[in-house]
């Protein structure tokens, strides 16, 4: 559960699991997911357990998400950009679909 401080302008609109959310410039995709109040950013490929970003500094890889159609990206290292689509990474990625 996170919120934006009222004095910070939210100027970038991104989509988290399809829903629009406005975040400030400089926010990462991971921050956008937290601001959107998503229950999880990924489900692990082992047990399917839900996870949200943990370290926010590129070390833990718990913020892996599908960003603009690319699976398993480290959302804490990707700056939010207008129109960016961030989706939950559901378990192991699908590498190829016939």
């Amino acid at each position, binding site marked *: 559960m996170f919120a934006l401080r009222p004095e910070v302008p939210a100027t970038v609109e991104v989509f988290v699991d399809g829903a629009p959310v406005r975040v400030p410039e400089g926010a990462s995709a991971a921050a956008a997911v937290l601001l959107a109040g998503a229950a999880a950013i990924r489900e692990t490929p082992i047990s399917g357990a839900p996870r949200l970003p943990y370290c926010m500094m590129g070390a833990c890889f718990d913020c892996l998400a599908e960003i603009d159609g*690319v*699976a398993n990206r480290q959302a804490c290292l990707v700056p939010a950009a207008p129109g960016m689509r961030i989706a939950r990474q559901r378990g*192991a*990625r*699908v590498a*190829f679909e016939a």
Partner: protein
Amino acid sequence: MRDESFDAIVVGGGLVGAAIAWGLQRQGLAAVLLDEGDVAFRASRGNFGLVWVQSKGLGAPWYQRWTRASAGAWPGLAAELAERTGAEIGLAQPGGVHLCLGEAEFEERASRMARMQAEAGNAGFDYRMIGAAELREMLPGLGPAVTGASWTPYDGHANPLRLLHALHRAFVAAGGAYVPEAKVTEGEAAPHDFAVLAGGRRFVAPRIVLAAGLGNAALAPLFGLSAPVRPQRGQVLVTERAAELLPMPVTTIRQTQEGSLMMGDSMEEVGFDLRQKPEVMREIARRAVLSFPWIGRLNLVRAWSALRVMAPDGLPIYDQSARYPGAFTANCHSGVTLAGAHAHLLAPMIAAGALDPALDPFTAGRFDVRAAS
């Protein structure tokens, strides 16, 4: 120092030593398995994980037979390890393919497979050359550079690390003594009477098996044996987990039990040098992407280099000491493929005291003959 007495000493806790030690314990012998510590040249931790038959033994049909026998013994090994430890080793033997990029590779492969079949004689060698169109039905998302493949029904793969863990667990559960941090520093040999110093302890037994990988080269002469093995570097790349896609392993690409795509098998003659080389990694990646373009999108999460245990002719060395009966040595680079044979065929021979004549061609003496002729 108190002597610790066993029926057999196995030197080397990698896949070869652990499979033999498990096989001996399974035969009712009390064995001790001596291993090094956390950091060592461990081919077993770098293994690609194929249970692979189709490329083995051109010009050496006895190696082809031994490999086939091992693939045949594997289901029994996997089942007993699962039963005793609960470990799922991920053995799958759906057959396997060797992909060819370009027409020349396809022609060359076809002629190699035909020779393998001719050499197999009565033992038979079932294979097919599969053209690009049919192959595209078998494997998802093949690249345009793939011209075809050879296929045999004997091939498969397993999880080499779970195999290692399960062998250690099954061995210990059956009463075996697994001793890490116990690199052998001294050895004494007499017929049916061996002693080694390792990790500050002294172990004695009427049988000893040298399965110390590259360490065998120095150990073997102490026991009247010869193991002229050298390191050959191989590099492997592994991706993140992906949903299951590949129905069967390919010689240099397989999807693991966990879903990772594994790519590999460079062969580099660089001595005891474990450095990774980006240009070699690139070539492995390049061939993988030519084979399956979708692999290019996957994240590479791990890569490593490891040293294969190579005899001068690339075949295993199995031997017994003439001077000190009871001393044996096993050396090979295919510790996963041959695990079935080591546990279920070789270990009983060692327990009984002598190697079967079928293994005669694998003696290290073969190198003396060549040197003399």
